[in-house]
């Protein structure tokens, strides 16, 4: 089954006939990489992208590094609040409410 298209114009088709970075094939791909990573593109476009990646090591490395960026962002650590922090902030919020 073909995936539902998201918003906007249909994504550009990538030509696999030639492969020259300066001709913009890779630039077309670059515009669509997040949609590709997020699995939002129609299946025929995904197939073309996979075909392109098979012939273009540069784009393959680029997409891997973008995917890794997303993975790192998803796993970035954040500190936790302590119980004392929660209590102090609650008190300050209620003090501010009372003062208004």
């Amino acid at each position, binding site marked *: 089954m073909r995936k539902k298209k*998201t*918003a*906007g114009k249909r994504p550009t088709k990538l030509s696999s006939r030639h492969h020259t*970075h300066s001709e913009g094939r*890779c*630039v077309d791909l*670059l*515009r669509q*990489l*997040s*949609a590709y990573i997020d699995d*939002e593109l129609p299946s025929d476009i995904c197939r073309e992208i996979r075909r392109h990646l098979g012939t273009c*090591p*540069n*784009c393959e*490395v*680029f997409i*891997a*590094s*973008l995917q*890794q*960026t*997303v*993975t*790192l*962002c*998803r*796993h*970035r*650590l*954040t*500190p*936790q*609040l302590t119980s004392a*922090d*929660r209590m102090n*902030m*609650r008190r*300050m*919020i*209620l003090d*501010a*409410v009372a003062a*208004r």
Partner: protein
Amino acid sequence: MRASAPRKPSPHPARQVLYGFDRLYRDHVDLIYRYAHRLCGETEAAKDLVQETFLNAYQGLKDFRGESKVSTWLYTIASRACIRMRRKRKGEPEHELSLEEFVPTSEGEFRLQIPMDGLSPEEALQNKELREALDQAIEKLPKKYRMALVLRDMEGLSAKEVGTIMGLNERAVKSRLHRARLFVRRELSARGITQQDNQKSGGSPS
């Protein structure tokens, strides 16, 4: 018809608001702190943002009709408060990120890598240098791009939810997210951190 049982007198309205607030605060303060910390990048600013968010939520609680999830409502309040607070603090103009600036101009630029081959993300982030580079890259992002990245890739919300929070359509959210990811990727890979650095510079995250 059966006579209804005598009902307990309902609490004073002000007390009801306080109960409602306490439940809201207890259930969501950790979520909003995590979001605030991801947006602000440092503890004190994140705490200020949490307080501002819940202060606004307290005042808006009686008008909240549940048209969106409570968490979406709080994310929206926090996002608006963040924009106001940053404007007040810095007054810096926001710059736009264009896709063209991320087009590699050389083979070398295309092939810049992030040192995590064969490592889980948790293992890769043991590398202090990589962790700091990630934090700095996110901190350098103009806030409207950072907000899209944080909400989508860190908080794990859908593009539609991010759009509701930021007042954008999905297409605009995806466009901002894509530029934000390309920006962070370029910042990380341009630092030239290598797999060897990764092995040398371990240490537990702060």
